[in-house]
């Protein structure tokens, strides 16, 4: 059994100092960082990915063996490409000089190239394999970006971590459901742990995930989605049934 993944970091955020202290075991394959927009969720993912350096703190990925990605006191700062962490950013930034297939192959080691075809198939991107990114729709771009990060993460075995920043934002509901289902089953098959960010209650429930509730740069609660987001779920159901409108 792996040790808990421990994240403890503080950094300057545009709304002030961001503090994040959470230790969690990846008991479920998918952990969700849930919180309102602007609460610093993206900043946390970027710090884990090594795209920004926290002012203080410690980031440990508790796989066997545990990897210290950052420790201010001990002066450890592991470069992004050595962390075994893959990130799909909120804005789907595909390499404009590469086709969809080349984009997906970018993070896949030469010895595991069969993953590329599998990814194209799983994400229904086969017919777009040779297409350049500028010819894609927003949804196709988003799908390719998530597929690219996921393909790379699955080649890391269970020791990697996939970070997804609002991966389904901007997609229509049906496409989102398809993509989410495919992605969840594939990552579960390959034992790839995921930490994703969302402010969507429905999405968190759909993932059936462990949830870290986050607001104003702090962890408020952590646990199974049914327990942590029960109140949000009730509020959402109330709004859907018209109660929210009546209260307003």
């Amino acid at each position, binding site marked *: 059994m792996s040790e808990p993944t421990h994240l403890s970091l503080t950094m300057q955020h545009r709304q002030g100092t961001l503090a994040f202290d959470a230790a969690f075991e990846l008991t479920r394959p998918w952990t969700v960082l849930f919180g309102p927009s602007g609460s610093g969720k993206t900043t946390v993912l970027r710090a884990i*990915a*090594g*795209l920004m350096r926290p002012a203080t703190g410690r980031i440990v990925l508790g796989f066997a063996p545990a990897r210290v990605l950052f420790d201010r006191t001990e002066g450890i700062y592991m*470069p*992004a*490409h050595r962390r*075994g*962490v*893959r*990130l*799909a*950013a909120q*804005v789907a*930034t*595909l*390499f*404009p*000089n*590469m086709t969809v297939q080349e984009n997906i192959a*970018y*993070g896949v080691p030469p010895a595991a190239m069969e993953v590329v075809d599998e990814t194209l198939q799983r994400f229904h991107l086969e017919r777009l394999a040779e297409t*350049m*990114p*500028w010819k894609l729709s927003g949804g196709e771009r988003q799908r390719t*970006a998530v597929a*690219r*990060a996921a393909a*790379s993460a699955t080649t890391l075995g269970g020791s990697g971590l996939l*970070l997804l920043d609002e991966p389904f934002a901007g997609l229509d509901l049906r496409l989102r459901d398809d993509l989410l289902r495919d992605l969840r089953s594939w990552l579960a098959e390959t034992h790839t742990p995921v930490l994703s960010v969302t402010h969507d209650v429905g999405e968190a429930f759909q993932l059936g995930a462990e949830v870290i509730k986050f607001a104003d740069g702090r962890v408020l609660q952590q646990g199974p989605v049914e327990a942590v987001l029960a109140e949000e779920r009730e509020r959402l159901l109330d709004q859907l049934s018209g109660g929210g409108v009546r209260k307003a």
Partner: protein
Amino acid sequence: MDFEALWLTLRLAAGTTAILLVAGLPLAWWIASGRGAGRAVVQALVALPLVLPPTVVGFYLLVMLGPLTAPGRLLIRLFGHSLAFSFSGLLVGSVIYSLPFAVQPLVAGFGSVDRGYTEAAAGLGASPWRTFRTVVMPLTRGSLLTSAVLAFTHTVGEFGVVLMLGGNIPGATQTLSISLYDQVQDFNYAAANRTALALVIISLAALIVIYSRRGSGLGRGELV
């Protein structure tokens, strides 16, 4: 037509361009990536030849390459003779004088690459070198070409620095622009006309290469 001067000019321009591309790439990347306290100072030094009269650059290089300075004495010990009034000396002078023409298009090109691309590559496990090689360089091919062409044509058209540093030795330091000056001094306008026309053709061809590239790389996402 002074073919000896033409050949020497082309050799000088090709050598200068090759050296500037090798040295200019890391320098431009360092400037564009915005790290390091001395960046503004280095940027100013790189751009200095743009604003200084060529004779000033030539004079200081002449002094620097001579036995009065430590670098000059070191070079004399390495080569066995002073680099002033030699082809090697011209090469050193051309590299310094054309430095901004090679570096500035590269800095602009690197600066135009969206940070999202380099972060996406890092987020997929690519090392900084791989990111530079596979993402940044392909996106800035147009800037690389502009840099090479400007360095080449600027060297072809050099006059002041070449005259100060190399003198006017046929076959050793006499370039086309100095040959043209000699021909005019001798009232040999027919020869001067041919030499001037050769310089115009080289420069025009180089500029056509740059402008014909503009927009052609967009299909592959190139930032021109």
